[in-house]
């Protein structure tokens, strides 16, 4: 893996909300074509990493590079324009807007491809095609998640950030979302996701980071982390 193909690099990141520091020197990177997942116990600072990347919290120190460009202290709207797409964990669709309107809003920063992208999204998420005129708030949790992901993909994203995309979903939808994530990635979009369903997430990921108390604990390929005895015992709920 050469440095030219590096899409995102977070290095030595110290960040938090107001006075409280949550991330104490995080390092992670995402290369072109990869799915990278961040797992760890509650309160480890997983979602905070994504918020820091989006410029939504105070960054004390460290750097965040998107395609070799430092984006620390850039306003959120500008960061989105630079090609970072983000799907929050909750409240990730505009409930009173229809499915199609949600997707149109997703295309806000470069609206010229809206029609082309809409067709692509309805191919990727056939379920949504039937529901395009329905308010997103009337959909089930799994379908909302699909709207949220499709909305984020309406721009030509350099990288897609997913915050716990399968939280609260039924096992059936969970598998469907993971296979969709794989498909999106195969279409050429690198993905950085934070997940609770660690085993399944590592299963589809190229690499994984395990965070504990706002710092890196383990790093490795998805398979290696799943097979690692300590990781399995501590973080994957394995009873071996």
């Amino acid at each position, binding site marked *: 893996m050469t440095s030219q193909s590096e899409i995102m690099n977070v290095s030595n990141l110290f960040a938090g909300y107001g006075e409280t520091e949550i991330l104490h020197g995080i390092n992670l990177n995402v290369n072109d074509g990869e799915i990278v997942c961040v797992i760890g116990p509650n309160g480890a600072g997983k979602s905070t990493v994504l918020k820091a990347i*989006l410029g*939504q919290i105070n960054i004390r120190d460290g750097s965040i590079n998107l395609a070799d460009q430092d984006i620390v202290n850039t306003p959120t709207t500008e960061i989105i324009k630079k090609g970072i797409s983000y799907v*929050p964990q909750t409240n990730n669709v505009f409930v009173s*807007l229809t499915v199609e309107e949600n997707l149109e809003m997703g295309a806000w920063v470069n609206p010229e491809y809206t029609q082309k992208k809409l067709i692509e999204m309805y191919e990727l998420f056939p379920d949504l095609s039937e529901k395009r005129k329905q308010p997103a708030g009337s959909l089930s949790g799994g379908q909302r998640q699909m709207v949220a992901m499709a909305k984020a993909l309406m721009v030509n994203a350099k990288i897609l950030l997913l915050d716990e995309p399968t939280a609260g979903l039924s096992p059936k939808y969970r598998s469907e979302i993971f296979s969709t994530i794989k498909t999106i990635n195969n279409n050429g979009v690198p993905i950085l996701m934070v997940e609770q369903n660690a085993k399944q997430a590592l299963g589809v990921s190229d690499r994984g980071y395990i965070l504990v108390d706002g710092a890196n604990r383990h790093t490795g390929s998805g398979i290696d982390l799943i097979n690692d005895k300590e990781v399995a015992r501590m973080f994957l709920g394995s009873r071996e």
Partner: protein
Amino acid sequence: MWDSFGFEFVNYYFVPGLVLGCIYALGAIGITLTFGILRFANFAHGEIMMTGAFLTWTFLELSKLIFGFYFHPLIACIPSIFIAIAIALSVDRFFYKPFRDSPTIMIVMASFGMMLIIRSLVQVIWGPNQITFVKGIAKPNGILRDLSGSFDMMLLVPSKHIFIILGTVIIMLAFNYMLTKTRIGKAMRAVSDSPDLAKVTGIDVEQVIRATWYVGGFCAVMAGVFMAMDTQFIMSTMGFRMLLPMFAAAILGGIGRPFGAVLGGLVIGFAEELSAYPWFGNGPLLSPGYKSGVAFSILVLMLIFRPSGILKGRVF
């Protein structure tokens, strides 16, 4: 069918109720949009309405001075709309924007202050007294009277009321088109749904806020001018007096819901006018002096029993 009951009811209660409802609806749109998108109760909204009416009166007088005859108020209000929007935008830029990330109460207080400042400025410029907006007695529209008379149902609606009702319908249709078909209108609904999500979606929230002042300012001036056309006078306190029924309308319809505001405005307008109808016996049900009490009662009852409003809006 068209007995004296219907004649009196329609001409003296129903149509005035509809007219008042239209005015409240237009005013409530601005209040509910500001609440939905900027998340605060804008006390200065009535003052934009009032300023719009005063500006329109000024342009009416100017037209008499320059051209020798009075323009129609709906022509004279066009420059007022631009000035009122400019006022709303500058107030937002200099007095509200600094408080965007502060607790809501601060921006509410700022708007309360703006209410007093704008009203005082209007009193300094135009004086504190009542001014006649349009002179003369409004006669019923002849065409409508004769046309409806041939169907044995004489409608005694003055032209000004026809202008108000049709004008409101046209504004509502345009507003509906904007919210459901245009990019900026959809973004306004999106920001109203969730400002945080709008931000991480890349929507330019400041642009949406400016659009909100455009629409709110426009509707406020129209409400003010319609009010002035209806009552035929203007006064520096007219905006403040409208504030309660407009808030009642916005809450009744569901705060943050533009079409709820329209519905709420119509209900409050009708309720105020119909409360004076002799439903039982010969005297009015409520003395017309209690009209504004009706809006207040509806407001209190809604807040107690259904704070989310008819269309399930946000709760304070």
